[in-house]
């Protein structure tokens, strides 16, 4: 932002960094129901990949596989040079249902991941306030989840994930359960935080606009079983702000993702889902 104006535009262009997450030929089935097959994509060390697809296409299942919460039937997931076989250090997930522990205060919820990672107490006490501040919850350290709005609860969920300083963030429709205005605020908050501490991020959503606004690439899952139908590069220049939403290129890309999703039989159903 304070970069000297002499810097050529190309040099501030987005660079995803080397691949941090590699998903190779991933397949998952529940009994006879095949959820997805042959899913292959990479995520750079400083890249946000948004995953969109109709409800029931296995977006969330895919994310839970990558987090190591459930096993896969085919293929491999690699994070850096480690093959994922279970929950792996360096990854953190933000959940659609927030997943806060209702008996813990904001501060204790944020400290949770650090405690599980065996971080020394003094270190936790030092770090927790920083992350509470980072997500804009300063002053609410002692509040319980039930005393907060959905948006604030998800800020807390985000702080808990960020506090372990992951180099991979997995976002499972994190803003789907909050109201429209809060959702927009949180999207830009997330972008601001990501600018401060860029990580590899997989962002699952079924909002096309959200996917285009946040993602450097949008992966479209489709079909039954689903697989990657198309990957669309989101070549919006510079930092994304509210202005971005009004850029013609943003509208083009949104239409592009939209029509990619629409070009199949389940289109009608998807239209219905996207109205809410």
């Amino acid at each position, binding site marked *: 932002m304070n970069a000297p104006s002499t810097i050529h535009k190309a040099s501030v262009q987005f660079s995803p960094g080397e691949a941090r997450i590699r998903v190779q030929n991933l397949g998952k089935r529940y009994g006879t129901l095949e959820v997805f097959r042959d899913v292959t994509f990479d995520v750079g060390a400083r890249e946000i990949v948004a995953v969109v697809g109709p409800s029931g296409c296995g977006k969330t299942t895919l994310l*839970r596989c990558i987090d190591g919460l459930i096993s896969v039937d085919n293929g491999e997931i690699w994070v850096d040079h480690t093959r994922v076989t279970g*929950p792996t250090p360096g990854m953190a*997930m933000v959940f659609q249902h927030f997943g806060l*522990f209702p008996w813990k205060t904001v501060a204790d919820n944020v400290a949770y991941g650090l405690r*599980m*990672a065996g971080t020394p107490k003094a270190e936790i006490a030092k770090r927790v306030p920083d992350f509470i501040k980072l997500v804009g919850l300063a002053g609410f350290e002692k509040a319980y989840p*039930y005393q907060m709005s959905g948006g604030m609860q998800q800020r807390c969920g985000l702080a808990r994930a960020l506090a372990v300083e992951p180099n991979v963030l997995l976002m499972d429709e994190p803003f789907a359960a909050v109201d429209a205005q809060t959702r927009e605020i949180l999207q830009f908050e997330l972008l601001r935080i990501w600018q401060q501490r860029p990580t590899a991020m997989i962002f699952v959503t079924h909002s096309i606009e959200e996917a285009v606004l946040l993602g450097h690439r949008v992966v479209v899952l489709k079909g039954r079983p689903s697989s990657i139908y198309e990957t669309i590069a989101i070549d919006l220049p510079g930092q994304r702000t509210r202005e971005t939403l009004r850029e013609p290129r943003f509208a083009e890309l949104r239409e592009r993702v939209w029509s990619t999703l629409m070009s199949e039989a389940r289109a009608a159903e998807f239209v219905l889902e996207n109205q809410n």
Partner: protein
Amino acid sequence: MIKAWLGQRTPVVVSLLVGIALWEIAGRLSSPAFMVPFSVTIERLWTMTAEGGLAAQFLDSIELFAAGFAISLAVGLPLGLLLARVKALRIGIEPYIMVVYATPMVALIPFILSLMGFGFAPKVLVVFLFAVFPIIYNTVEGARSIKPELIEVAQSFRSTEWALWREVMLPYTLPYTMTGVRQAIGRALVGMVAAEFFLSATGLGRIIMTSSQNFDTAGVFASILLIGILGVALMRLGAMIEQHFARWRQ
């Protein structure tokens, strides 16, 4: 504030006063071999305390109650969590728990007597058997209602099994366990008196028995009143603890 408190308490106070008055009248109208009035009961309670025997017997009963109850909690809570977490164990053991829970415990006392004799331990066992099942039952029900999402969060943050119990299952389940504790307090009191009746006679149970054998109706009433007050006090305490652990539930 005092006014508000009085306003809230008035029905209770009035109801108690009416109850005491009815007791007094009924006691005065009936034969002292059958029932004594409230005033005589209180008087007897006072003389028994003054004579010095009551305090010792009371402490004796409390000791029995506390020992049996502590073991119930120490066994019931972890066992309940274990049964909730390990499905096969739960399915295997549940029928036994249901059978023993449904069996009137008093029926087991002769068996315990022949097995363990007249010492302190068999009496503690009786209190334990009376109290442990509501604790197990409520703990299992509570722990089973944990949202799977929260367990998934714990797994995602690479919780160990022990940390999962300590950080998630225990705090979630405690309010449910405390509901069981409240029920268990009442049952443990019954167990306490039953053990004092049917095994070696000690404590308040012994006072009731000897008073009854000596046609000392006032002594019987005084002991029963004391047990009743003890029970109410303990249950209030249980409710307060329950409230404390349930703060986070709106």
